[in-house]
């Protein structure tokens, strides 16, 4: 590159309390370049974007934008400086009109008052770039998610940005809509606008991006032209796995997979729900740990939610215990004997100010209550039992759960579901954000549960956890089951290959 970069970030650091979010991140974006920014959850992408857009300050490091040192204290300032951001969650106001959502912040005025006619024309002009012609005076909430996403992009472009940051902009778009978006991105590039494109969909990156920066654990691991790096290489760099990696176990899962595997308890065929789950099949047997592997956005959690009744599928069939199964609510799934330890402990799991006992008994309460009155003694017995058997380190059942470490909180949640004596337990990222020691304990625990005959469906983004822990692995890629690997075939290379190329074994779905 002969021209100086538009944006250059050097050695950027950021700590949140005790945790390091960024540890020397770098990125360099040329004018008119579409630049992919990839990395697993917690790699530091969002922190980097938040610093760049003025939401949080960086601790240390250097940012140069348009050749000058750059530091902004607020989103307004970033916007004014020429950096616009489109967030994954649509950040517009549903009750306001399309015109306002596009024009607020840089209104057109006439004699000091808003010029609605001019603003309407401006909104229509911007939307015309996407071949969209809609009634811009209607409230945003009247339109579909995809249309709203396009409106968000029109807003960003309208700020005559020099750099547009798109954080998973296609997560709510279908293929046709995504194609329109890519045309717009290419149009921006031709006008000399740079784009930072965050996505977990590999094919998209190769379709629209020129260069890529790969982050891991708060650091920039590699930056190169898209053409210089293969999909497999990209995925393994992102996950931090060497392709030719020697053996040696890194998890506490028993190596021999010697659970006494019984009959199939849960199976799903042709599951379909929106853009995230397009055609998923899998099955779980008694006493078996089944792993769900895939990149973010592959549809793993969304599939689990269908099984748990937290969402209803548009198509496909679920069978549980030999019969058709169509849970309408999580309560249905729980009654049928399914437990679901969610990915996000803090949001969907614990109630921080309640005690360990209360947190553990929340799901069981309807069963423990007689005429609405809780049987305190029985409750206490159950809690004591699980604190002992799960090895929860705490002052006692009355301690508030927020005072516990992440690992112990996770054990309380495990206890919550185990107290229901489930027949199938879904674990979504069971060891995320937990220190190494506690991780091993939880992995051991899951192993023991399977030995005792529990069917376990484990979603994990940690390759070694899936490859060493699971008896069978289903690899999901962009909403499709692309591979099923059984005991002898499970290794990280094969899982990586399936995640990158959709290979592994030919899937019915891709017919």
């Amino acid at each position, binding site marked *: 590159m002969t021209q100086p970069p538009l944006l250059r970030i050097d050695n950027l650091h950021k700590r949140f309390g005790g945790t390091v979010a960024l540890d020397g991140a770098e990125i360099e974006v040329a004018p008119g370049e579409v630049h992919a920014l990839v990395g697993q959850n917690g790699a530091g992408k969002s922190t980097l974007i938040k610093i760049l857009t003025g939401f949080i300050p960086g601790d240390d490091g250097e940012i140069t934008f348009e050749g000058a040192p750059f530091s902004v204290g*607020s*989103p*307004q300032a*970033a*916007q*004014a400086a020429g950096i616009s*951001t489109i*967030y994954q969650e*649509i*950040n*517009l*106001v*549903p*009750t*306001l*009109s399309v015109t*306002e*959502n596009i024009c*607020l*912040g840089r*209104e057109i005025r006439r004699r000091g*008052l*808003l010029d*609605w*006619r001019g603003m*309407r024309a401006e909104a229509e002009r911007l939307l015309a770039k*996407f*071949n*969209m*012609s*809609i*009634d811009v*005076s*209607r*409230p945003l*909430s*009247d*339109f*579909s998610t*995809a*249309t709203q996403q*396009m409106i968000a992009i029109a*807003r960003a472009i309208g700020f005559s940005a020099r750099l547009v940051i798109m954080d998973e902009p296609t997560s709510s778009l279908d293929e046709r*809509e995504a194609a*329109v978006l890519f045309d717009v991105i290419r149009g921006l590039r031709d006008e000399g606008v740079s784009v930072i494109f965050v996505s977990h969909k590999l094919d998209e990156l190769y379709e629209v991006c020129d260069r890529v920066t790969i982050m891991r654990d708060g650091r920039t691991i590699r930056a190169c032209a898209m053409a210089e790096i293969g999909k497999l290489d990209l995925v393994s760099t992102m996950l931090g796995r060497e392709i030719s990696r020697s053996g040696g176990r890194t998890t506490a899962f028993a190596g021999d997979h010697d659970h006494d595997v019984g009959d199939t308890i849960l199976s799903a065929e042709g599951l379909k729900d929106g853009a995230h789950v397009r055609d998923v099949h899998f099955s779980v047997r008694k006493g078996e740990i089944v792993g769900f592997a895939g990149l973010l956005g592959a549809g793993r959690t969304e599939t689990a939610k269908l099984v748990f009744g937290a969402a209803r599928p548009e198509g496909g069939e679920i069978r549980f215990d030999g019969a058709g199964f169509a849970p309408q609510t999580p309560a249905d799934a729980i009654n049928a004997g399914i437990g679901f330890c969610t990915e996000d402990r803090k949001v969907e799991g614990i109630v921080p100010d309640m005690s360990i006992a209360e947190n553990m008994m929340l799901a069981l309460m309807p069963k423990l209550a007689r005429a609405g009155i809780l049987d305190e003694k029985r409750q206490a017995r159950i809690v004591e039992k699980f604190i002992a058997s799960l090895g929860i380190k705490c002052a006692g059942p009355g301690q508030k759960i927020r005072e516990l470490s992440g690992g112990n909180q996770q054990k309380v949640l495990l206890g919550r579901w185990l107290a229901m004596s489930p027949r199938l337990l879904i674990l979504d990222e069971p060891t995320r954000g937990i220190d190494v020691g506690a991780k091993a304990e939880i992995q051991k625990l899951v192993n023991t549960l399977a030995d005792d005959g529990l069917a376990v469906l484990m979603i994990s983004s940690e390759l070694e956890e899936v490859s060493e822990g699971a008896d069978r692995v289903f690899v999901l890629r962009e909403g499709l089951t692309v591979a099923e690997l059984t005991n002898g075939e499970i290794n990280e290379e094969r899982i990586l290959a399936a995640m990158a190329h959709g290979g592994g074994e030919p899937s019915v779905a891709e017919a």
Partner: protein
Amino acid sequence: MIGMAGNRGLMGSYGVVVALMLVILFGWLRYDNFLSPFNVMSVLRYNSMFALVALGMCFVIMTEGIDLSVGANAAMSSVVAAHASHYGLVPGLAAGVGAGLVVGLLNGLIVTRLKIMPFIATLATMLAAGGMALLLSGNQSIPVSYATSFTWLGQGNLFGLPVPALIAAVAYVIGSVILNRTSAGRTVLAIGGNEEATRMMGLPVERTLMVTYIACGGLAGLAGVILAAQFGAGQPIEGKGWELFAIASVVVGGTLLTGGVGSVGATLAGVLLLGVLFTILNFENGKGWISLSAYWQSVIRGFFLLVVVLFQARLARKHAAQPAVSAT
């Protein structure tokens, strides 16, 4: 329909305007002097205070906030204005509005800086302002000066119309322009629609909230000035329940308590609807067929409020139930 509030706001305003017209029609058919100039003028004169308070409340509610302090604020401001009225009309007006602005400023600071929920923040300032009103008046009505022209603000006429009604009319025109024709007004709606998104869009959330609460306080202060001028005395305990009347008017006008949708004009219609209803109950008493105590009147107004709000909610739901359309 450029520049109007969202469709839902329009739906809401139809409801309240229709109800207002029906109630007026009923009154006109049933009572002899219902639309007599005297009666119309006195209804306008009296309700202009509520109209001012409801205007400020309307903006606060559109941000998904609430201001419980307006009643106590108006009472306190009426006392302050009564004290200051001896220096003339302008000092009386300025002192009363100024007192209201101070309460509004406090509300704004507590909500935006200390991040206290508006309900709690303004509950606290309501108690404080109520106490202050009693302190400043020694728990007595404070007579205003008749030597100055201060009472003109409440009792005078201009172009044959009551001065307070003209003041309220001007305030509503300004409020409507701000809401529909300035970015500040649209930002108010944006905050109520989705505060986090508004912040992400780079709009000045804190500053807008601050100004909204200050303006609401100032309008309550202005209502207090008119109260003192109209009744010839600062009234330390008069403002009780005004905040509820204001909230009721705003809600009847179709502004959603969840914020993001609202209309200034419909709020005025809401004020008039409740005011006219009150007048009808008085007329009914005058006919001698029944004799409703003030207590019963309050019960009937509450019931009527419920009916109108249910009607609004049905309209809003019907609108929301329309299928979303993609126009790509």
